[in-house]
């Protein structure tokens, strides 16, 4: 069978980096094809070429046997190729209908025909099984619903090839289910779906075949998933065998280092108490929207509190803003690296020393030498892969950016409590293992570490103790000996008793 979508000999070089070299593979009609690889393996570049966002230096893409030369995303749309990016491209203040037909409004002499717009959109939404009204503003939708709207957009463009980049990274499990069902329908309708994800279980569940990229080259191409195992895929991704990526090792817990009492804020009205001990890794698990990140931001002083106090080593903290918390030894690596983690435009080195430099800047004057030494030290110690310390941080892969953010706090001398929100979101397997190792090492040094994660295997894999949150309160606490996947997940799910099948996921 001839492939409907095929890549042949695609190469792309960025200054200093060979992002893709000679990548060729094809995907048949009516199939879901996984595209996996570590960060920096070339997936994003391949997708950007497919979307028409950037041009390949060499090679070509053909759709339905016709060679394509995409000069822009518009060209790609015209050929029926649509990419749904990880960062959604919707205008929050416009309605669903307006977003879906943005740039192609039905109009008479420039006056928008809102009636036909609304009717058409409602009909299409119904077709794909979405219970969202066309008149709703996008800003009022949940992340999951927005993701579906993006896909609806692709469908309305009569896309024949739809590429989904990490579609479930910010979805709850119910929302993911809805997405998977829709993907199934699209496949049945003969579309080609390119599915990019770090979550291998999703790849196995959804995909008919998959392609593994490594260091910009084609590492493996599997037209069918039958001959593939999870272990073999991971091995192909990293080029080496990884047996146990968690590598958990226990250590005795010491005194209580962090004590949080009656913490509440605008988005977390019910007061919450918890504590973390020296040498302990305390996992916080909960679904998206359960209030985990909100709680941590309150503890750190990033958002205004309604009530609550934080004590570090038995001393009440005055930390009502991040600056004070840092001075008292409480630091937070936030959930969303791009939004409030990295400082775009500054170098890797500057991102590392942004906080710690006050220790070695007498009278506010920089010590360039100390800064360079500190940065070089951490780049080496954490094996941050960057061409130079002066590289703009946006050019680094997600895993390396995350290491830079951890280095930022390691460079601070007096850290006692480290809170890490989603330490490995969007990060490849190899870098994950390195980050876990770093956390163990810090715990062994006596820090209290709080890890927030929406990935249950991760929480169970690395934590000594787990607190489960659900709908803004603590639902359960587990010691490592009591860890049980089903029990933890069950306590994280809202409405365990009341079974309302029609309840809208939010």
């Amino acid at each position, binding site marked *: 069978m001839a492939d409907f979508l095929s890549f042949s000999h695609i190469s792309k070089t960025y200054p200093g980096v060979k992002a893709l070299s000679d990548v060729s593979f094809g995907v048949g009609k009516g199939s879901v094809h996984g595209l996996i690889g570590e960060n920096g393996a070339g997936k994003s570049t391949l997708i950007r070429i497919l979307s028409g966002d950037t041009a390949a230096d060499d090679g070509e893409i053909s759709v339905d046997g016709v060679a394509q030369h995409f000069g822009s995303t518009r060209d790609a749309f015209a050929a029926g190729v649509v990419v749904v990016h990880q960062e959604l491209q919707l205008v929050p203040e416009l309605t669903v209908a307006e977003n879906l037909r943005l740039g192609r409004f039905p109009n008479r002499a420039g006056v928008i025909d809102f009636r036909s717009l609304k009717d058409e959109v409602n009909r299409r939404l119904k077709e794909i099984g979405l219970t969202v009204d066309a008149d709703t503003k996008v800003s009022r939708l949940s992340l999951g619903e927005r993701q579906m709207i993006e896909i609806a957009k692709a469908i309305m463009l009569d896309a024949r090839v739809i590429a989904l980049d990490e579609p479930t990274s910010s979805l709850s499990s119910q929302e993911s289910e809805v997405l998977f069902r829709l993907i199934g329908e699209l496949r049945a309708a003969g579309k080609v779906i390119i599915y990019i994800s770090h979550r291998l279980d999703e790849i196995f569940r959804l995909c008919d075949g998959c392609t593994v990229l490594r260091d910009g080259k084609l590492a493996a191409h599997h037209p069918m998933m039958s001959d593939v195992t999870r272990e073999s895929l991971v091995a192909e991704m990293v080029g080496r065998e990884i047996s146990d990526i968690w590598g958990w090792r226990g250590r005795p817990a010491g005194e209580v280092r962090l004590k949080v009492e009656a913490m509440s804020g605008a988005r977390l009205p019910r007061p919450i108490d918890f504590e973390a001990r020296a040498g302990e890794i305390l996992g916080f698990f909960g679904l998206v929207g359960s209030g985990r990140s909100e709680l941590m931001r309150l503890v750190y002083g*990033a958002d205004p509190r309604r009530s609550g106090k934080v004590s570090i080593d038995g001393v009440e903290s005055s930390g009502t803003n991040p600056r004070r918390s840092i001075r008292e030894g409480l630091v937070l690596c936030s959930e969303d690296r791009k*939004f409030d983690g990295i400082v775009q435009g500054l170098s890797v080195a500057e991102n590392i020393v*942004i906080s710690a430099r006050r220790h070695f800047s007498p009278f506010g004057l920089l010590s360039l030498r100390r800064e360079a030494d500190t940065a070089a030290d951490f780049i080496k110690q954490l094996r941050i892969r960057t061409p130079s310390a002066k590289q703009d941080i946006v050019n680094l892969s997600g895993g390396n950016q995350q290491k830079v953010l951890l280095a930022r706090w390691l460079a601070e001398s007096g850290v006692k409590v480290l809170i890490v929100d989603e330490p490995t979101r969007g990060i490849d397997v190899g870098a994950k293992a390195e980050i876990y190792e770093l956390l163990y090492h810090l715990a062994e040094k006596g820090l209290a570490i709080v890890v927030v994660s929406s990935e249950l295997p991760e929480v169970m894999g690395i934590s000594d103790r787990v607190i489960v949150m659900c709908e803004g309160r603590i639902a359960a606490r587990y010691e490592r000996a009591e860890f049980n996947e089903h029990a933890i997940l069950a306590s994280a799910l809202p409405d365990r008793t009341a079974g309302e099948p029609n309840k809208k996921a939010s």
Partner: protein
Amino acid sequence: MAFLKRLLLGEQGLLVIFVIAFAVVSVFVPSFLTERNMLGLFQSVVTIGIVSCTMMFCLASRDFDLSVGSIVAFTGMVAVMASNASGSIVIGLIAALACGTFVGFVNGAIIAKLKINALITTLATMQIVRGLALISSDGRAVGINDPGFYQLALSRFLGIPTPIWIMVALFCVFGFVLNRSVFGRNTLAIGGNPEASRLAGVNVDGMRIWIFTIQGLVCAVAGILLASRITSGQPNAATGLELSAISACVLGGVSLAGGRAAMTGVIVGVLILGIAENAMNLLNIQAFYQYLVRGLILLLAVLLDNVRSTGLGRK
């Protein structure tokens, strides 16, 4: 050809263009490259040069200040009136510096603490402060009683007028602050990502207040020198200065989206605007055309910057 392209689109492209433009003007415009004209040129850019120093910080931190022209006029006014009233130039200068600093502080406090958009805030203070200048002088120029006040602008050191020295000194100071101080790096960090900077422990509110306060102080310096040069307090002085200063910064590669700034670029930007005006004066081109030319220069510079960024594969 490829060499030329690389030269123009490289990091130092603006400097190269500046050198070429300078050479061309020197050859083709008579009496351009004379000591007298050079000093005149530098003196003509003193106000915009001084104000651009702190405007650069403002833009680099993703903010905006439209009130600079009004502050320059107002503080010039204050310097003259306070000197006349007290009979002491020193008191006049202190009063002017204090007023400039105060307006800047108010700008910063409103923007940082009340979270009002900088564009709106300074648009408001621009009109308020201009109004104060007009009210206090009843809309008329106020002459200086003590001729000692002229000496601020007329005095020379090593044959070069004091205002030029002050401008150069401020270029050095703010270049140093931008590159070598925590304050400067934090400014760029805030411009790059304000929320990330806050979570990393940068005192974002405090920084913004300082940036605007210093801007006010520096505007007062420019206002005093301007009043001294034109030998009076003019309530309508320095109109449009805010846009010239922003133009100079943008010409010099400062990003309006924040996070990118360089003192050398801003200096070159200031000089390019100065040379264009000076050359046209020497060629007896009507002053109205200068607006046109300045606008075109600005557009070309931004286009060049855009071509350069895309050429480097940046977005």
